């Protein structure tokens, strides 16, 4: 019975070498467990695919269709979808809806993505400084974050937008300015916990500067929650841009965005409902897709969430 143990490795004449070979094999395990967990998350996969289609459609689509988003075809006003040459119909000026949705998608997605990058930058910086130094500096920064967080962001955004000349760049900055606080809180909590870990002390003992410890040692350890927050932030930014543009303070016509297309559509809600339904559908698709993507990433990147 006991001989079966030895039977399993009959040609083991060089145990040392075999051990080394086995060690080398262990050193290359698949590191795609997170990817596998993500792929099992159906909604997140669907979200990722929809986002990919929206991005590709917005950026490549306008080159593939024969209409320009600002071309006015006065003879074809209010053409319903699937009724003629304009696949998704036309608006009150006879502009092609598909072209406008694609160009609006460019603006909305670009604003959402850029606002996310900027807000992540500010949030990570503030959170990392507050979390690493703690004490008075950390308390002051985090109380400031709490104070800004107290303002309802939509009113803050509208108040600021009323004072500043609206444009793609200024709206992006404004959205970023109202979205960085959550990130700062997440990062602050993470860094505060990581700062006390042995490897941070070890890095300091080897002569690393504060800056290097924070951004090369600690922040990479907090990358999972940061990525999740980033994804959810894109969704929030797209939604905020739509609000503000819908209310007329955001992206100004004739530049289309999903939000200001809704603004024009409300007058014709009964006679030409597709003018409202189509941009609304795309906003909903984009926002829910990013939210599902964020959920999927959270589950995939955090092994402790596996049971959920």
């Amino acid at each position, binding site marked *: 019975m006991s001989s079966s143990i030895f039977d399993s490795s009959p040609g083991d004449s060089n145990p040392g070498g075999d051990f080394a070979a086995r060690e080398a094999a262990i*050193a290359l395990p698949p590191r795609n467990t997170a990817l596998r967990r993500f792929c099992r998350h159906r909604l997140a996969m669907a979200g990722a695919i929809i986002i990919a289609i929206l991005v590709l459609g917005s950026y490549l689509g306008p080159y593939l269709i024969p209409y320009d988003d600002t071309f006015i075809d006065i003879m074809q006003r209010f053409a319903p979808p699937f009724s003629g040459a304009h696949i998704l119909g036309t608006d009150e000026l006879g502009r092609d809806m598909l072209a406008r949705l694609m160009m609006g998608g460019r603006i909305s997605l670009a604003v959402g993505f850029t606002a996310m990058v900027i807000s992540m930058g500010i949030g990570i910086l503030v959170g990392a400084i507050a979390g690493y130094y703690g004490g008075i500096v950390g308390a002051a920064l985090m109380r400031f974050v709490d104070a800004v967080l107290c303002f309802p962001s939509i009113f803050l955004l509208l108040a600021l937008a009323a004072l500043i000349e609206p444009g793609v760049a200024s709206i992006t900055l404004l959205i970023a300015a109202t979205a960085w606080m959550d990130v700062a809180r997440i990062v602050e909590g993470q860094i505060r916990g990581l700062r006390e870990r*042995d*490897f941070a002390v*070890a890095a300091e003992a080897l002569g690393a500067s504060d800056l290097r410890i924070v951004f090369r040692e600690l922040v990479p350890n907090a990358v999972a929650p940061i990525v999740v927050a980033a994804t959810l932030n894109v969704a929030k930014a797209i939604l905020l841009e739509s609000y503000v543009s819908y209310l007329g303070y955001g992206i100004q016509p004739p530049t289309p965005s999903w939000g200001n297309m809704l603004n024009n559509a409300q007058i014709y809600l009964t006679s030409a409902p597709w003018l409202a339904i189509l941009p609304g559908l795309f906003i909903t698709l984009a926002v829910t897709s990013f939210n599902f993507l964020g959920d999927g990433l959270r589950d995939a990147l955090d092994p402790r969430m596996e049971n959920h």
Partner: protein
Amino acid sequence: MAGELLLEVENLAVSFRSRGAVADAVSDVSFRLHQGETLAMVGESGSGKSVTSLALMRLLPDAPQCQVRGSVKLRDKTGSGMLDVLALPEPQMQAVRGNNIAMVFQEPMTSLNPVKTIGAQITETIRLHRPMLARAAEDEAVRLLDLVGIPAPRQRLTAYPHQLSGGMRQRAMIAMALSCEPSVLIADEPTTALDVTIQAQILDLLKRLQEQTGMAVIFITHNLGVVAEIADRVMVMYSGRVVEQADVVPLFQQPLMPYTRGLLRSVPRLDLAGRRAGALYAIPGNVPDPRRPPPGCAFHPRCDSFADGRCNVEAPRLDSTADGRQVRCLRWPEFVA
């Protein structure tokens, strides 16, 4: 003594302030360390070993919470002078850490960054102090991993810490600490978290590296078996003070301070198992609260040679004996006799 003087610590004292109360974690610690020498710092948890070593590296919190007094002089690797570690501005101190004096920590499981490869961590440390190209640093990392006895070092560069065993990780940690050839290495219980066979390997490795590089090692441990194995000199600490300092052989042959005697008696010994039946000896009681140290000798409540009216009244000084040992005990002359 072996070589030139590398580290000179005089009257080092560290006190922490918490909610108004002041705790003297370390007081009146003085020692010298020469090239190629190994000094073992021994003592129970809370005796001030780790705080002393962190003070040497200036890794303790800043002034209001923590005060460090005394003097720490470290030989400058490049120049010929001594650096005043406690007075150095922080940017210069960063250049000293890892370069002149480096540290290996107790927990190999947690002292490597879990999200970065071994290679990235070692090459970054190398390039922190030695300006060189990424490719050259990588070759240097391979050489270091080979030096600390890691098989297939080039493949290991792309491994993450969780893919290595505890012993391997500690070797990688030592490779990082040695990457800039420090003249003093502080090893804070580097073998405590490892199993016994790996412990022996790591001790052998440290000894071999010390012979090759001539660095001095401060070895912090509470394992007296390890001390006997590796140390030239032993410094026994109790309640933040040095209570005995001697070369390793005389200390083991004739401990003068009752605390050292107690420590030696608490070591499990196979050769005595049959003769001395019963439970393993343990020093009764606990380390005193540094905020409320007992009057007189800090060890008197636990001492088996306690003399009422003396030990609990008069605080003993650190006496030097005729044969160059140091003892902090009022009654040591009686023990010699």
